[in-house]
């Protein structure tokens, strides 16, 4: 059961990610990214992180990707989904495959064949995570809040039409 779910969603992750990268139409690419992100959320659940899965769907697909869609529709780049020319494509594919293989070899050397035991109830509890986030990691947590505030301010300033550009 678990293996079947994993295989299904792992395949979905990879196929939809390829569509994101290769599809000429940006809207299709973004929609495919939604599939990738939701499938990764399912993998998070399998790895015993249901909270992260919910946050992944809520923040990534519910907010970040909608922002992408918005900008794509606003700038109307729908026809501008072209990819690079021949040589660059080949070099890029080579680099991507090479890097992935390197990672795979490294991971296999360290984690190959390591089994996982089934999840226990205590592994997926939310309370310890909340305590960690607001206890041990309170300072980073607050700093992320500050970062988001800075990002909001910066985005507002950047996206505002400058006085000189007004006609």
């Amino acid at each position, binding site marked *: 059961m*678990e*293996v079947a779910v*994993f295989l299904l969603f*792992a395949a979905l*992750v*990879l196929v939809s990610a*390829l569509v*994101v*990268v290769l599809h000429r139409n*940006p809207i299709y690419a973004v929609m495919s*990214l939604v599939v*990738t*992100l939701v499938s990764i959320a399912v*993998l*998070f659940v*399998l*790895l*015993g*992180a249901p909270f*992260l899965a919910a946050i*992944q769907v809520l*923040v*990534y697909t519910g907010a*970040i*990707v909608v922002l*992408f869609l*918005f900008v794509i529709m606003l*700038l109307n*780049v729908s026809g*501008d*989904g*072209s990819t*690079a020319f021949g040589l660059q494509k080949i070099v*890029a*594919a080579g*680099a*991507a495959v090479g*890097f*992935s293989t390197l*990672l795979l070899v490294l*991971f*296999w050397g360290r*984690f*190959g064949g*390591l*089994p*996982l035991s089934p999840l226990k109830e205590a*592994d997926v509890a939310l309370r310890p995570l909340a305590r*960690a986030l607001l206890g*041990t*990691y309170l300072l*980073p947590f607050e700093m992320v809040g500050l*970062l*988001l505030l800075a*990002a*909001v301010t*910066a985005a507002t300033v*950047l*996206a505002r*039409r400058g006085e000189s550009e007004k006609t």
Partner: protein
Amino acid sequence: MTVPIFWYLAVAAALFGIGTLGVLIRRSAIMAFLSIELMLNAVNLSIVAFARSLGERTGDLAAVLDGHVLVLMVIAVAAAEAAIGLALFIAVYRRRRTIDLNRLNLMRW
């Protein structure tokens, strides 16, 4: 039967590769940015897998939580990055009428 940890890491590695490919071949800045999101997600997936494996071997719940907190931070930073990045694209588009990365070469020489 449960899924071995390596399978998750394999998915993460392949996803990272796909993201790299996207960054290298896409001409539109937004599309390259989408590919970066893929890479971030690959990293997140591997962090969660590492955390699970570490918790499995040490039996230490705190180690797992460290990983999960790290992923939360990455997601928050990704949100900030998306907001600023897209605002930048809009600003650039207003001036240059394009976000084709090949033509945004003012700073090249």
